[in-house]
């Protein structure tokens, strides 16, 4: 398993909010992007036993895959009321992503919500390799 460091910075946008995430590998970039988004949304200090959810995602290209992947993680919180605390990408091509995420139940008494992210947008979406690192830029709708 790769070690996951949260290497992200928040991007200023007048009405909304974005993030720039960097990682050494493409798989690591997707994992880190999911965890960074959760870090922006929620303060999770305590974690208990987690469940594993497999995710299989099709996209047109890496940028589309990123939007769809983050959208799934967001849906797990909004629709299923669970928080993604870990993410593991098993396979990743330009059009397909196989991953599993570890989740814990959301408890509003325990987990502080910092931002309600309504959606992950395609606006100025970017997934690219710069020198030896991978980088993504994502804008959220708040």
């Amino acid at each position: 398993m790769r070690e996951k460091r949260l290497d992200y910075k928040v991007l200023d946008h007048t009405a909304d909010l974005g993030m720039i995430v960097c990682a050494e590998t493409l798989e690591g970039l997707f994992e880190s992007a999911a965890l960074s988004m959760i870090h922006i949304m929620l303060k999770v200090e305590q974690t208990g036993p987690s469940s594993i959810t497999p995710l299989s995602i099709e996209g047109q290209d890496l940028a589309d895959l990123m939007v769809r992947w983050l959208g799934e993680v967001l849906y797990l919180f909004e629709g299923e009321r669970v928080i993604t605390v870990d993410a593991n990408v098993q396979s990743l091509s330009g059009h397909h992503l196989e991953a599993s995420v570890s989740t814990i139940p959301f408890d509003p008494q325990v987990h502080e919500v910092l931002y309600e992210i309504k959606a992950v947008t395609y606006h100025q979406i970017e997934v690219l390799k710069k020198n030896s690192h991978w980088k993504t830029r994502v804008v959220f709708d708040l």
Partner: protein
Amino acid sequence: MDIKLKKLDEFRWIIPKTGAMRVPGLIFSSPQLLEAIKQEQSLVQVSNVATLPGIVRHSLAMPDIHWGYGFPIGGVAAFEENEGIISPGGVGYDINCGCRIMTTSLRADQIRPMIKDLVAALFINIPTGVGSAGTVRLTKSEEAKVAVEGASWAVKKGFGQAEDLERTEDHGTIPGADPSVLSDKAFKRGLDQLGTLGSGNHFLEIQVVDEIYDQERARAFGLFEGQITVMIHSGSRGFGHQICDDFLKKMAREVQAQRFQLPDRQLACAYIKSDLGQRYLAAMACAANYAWANRQILMHLAHETFLKALSISPSELNMKLLYDVCHNIAKIERHTVDGQELTVCVHRKGATRALPPAHPLLPDIYKAVGQPVLIPGDMGTYSFVLAGAEGALRETFASSCHGAGRVLSRSQATKKAKGRAIHRELEDKGIFVQSRGKKTLKEEMPEAYKDVSAVVEVVHRAGLACKVARMRPLGVIKG
């Protein structure tokens, strides 16, 4: 990208047609507001929208325009029904985010000492904030009925009165809603969010009518100086967000299939007459109707809370809906363009419909004075009621501005608020605020927004809508 602007007159600027633009851009603004707009990318977004197939006459921007994603917020664009497109990004994630205002028979001096308790009671009774569950629990089949029937579903269930419906844009129901096109995820996100306010810039506000500009229209709207009014700003919650998200992804594939050349992927779209375009319209109508039911229920909760907290009778309170408008929507409408009657799909993303007097779509009660146009400001200053004017029908597909519009990003606002007690500053101005999120107050502080009075002045003087009354906040609840 450097955008060249050509000044037409005191309130109008043109972005000349260049490159892939199919029509020019038309910006309603003032020199002062324009300075802030130039600092960000919203003018580029106005010209991007002008490149979309079937756009008619102008890509329009209201004076509260700010940087959105894909379409600018405060943008209006109409597309011809046979050759034009529909874009979920031109509506926004919060489909039918909108505003309603209720009048009362109360005067501010009667309830001023009770405002703090009233705000506390509203905060307890009205679910706010992220993931809050509503007072109405739906089954999937009942949720489908909400999606089809809109505000009338809520009235049938005892939330409000039948007369509220004629005081709601489109009677609170867009026809053509088809729940069979929705995903399970959309249904799931909507199950427990009906009757919830949400977070961010959504609010419920107790206001006092501070100034009347037009006595005749104010009388027709039931407004008088010193009166207590209540304003609600909310939308279709997670249900609408998921519907937009689902269809943007479908349209991203359509864009590839149709080989549309888009300057921004968020502008993903489909031809209005295509199967996908029609399915999106049917899905969008579901979310719009859900939002109207939501605001109808929120109004009912506010009504109940006022009665209980103030220990008064319904006739003493006399809370009546003045009007409900949406400001994130796409609608099939008839408009005259260069002397020709056209059926167009008008996208209003952060813009309000503004019908002038005598328009056939107006209810009889407002036929003589025009449609009420509701402009919420920020929590420290004012909100406005305007009435639609002829200029809107001529120039903007009957549209006006929708609010103040942000000027500071959230982190800029937080930085500016550092070390300050915004809560206390507002209390010193006589405004009691309760909010769920710790960051909300700082991010939503008055300086984060443009001067709403300057925005309203532009639409008034440009002849899009005329000022009727100004309201000052006394109490606010936020997510």
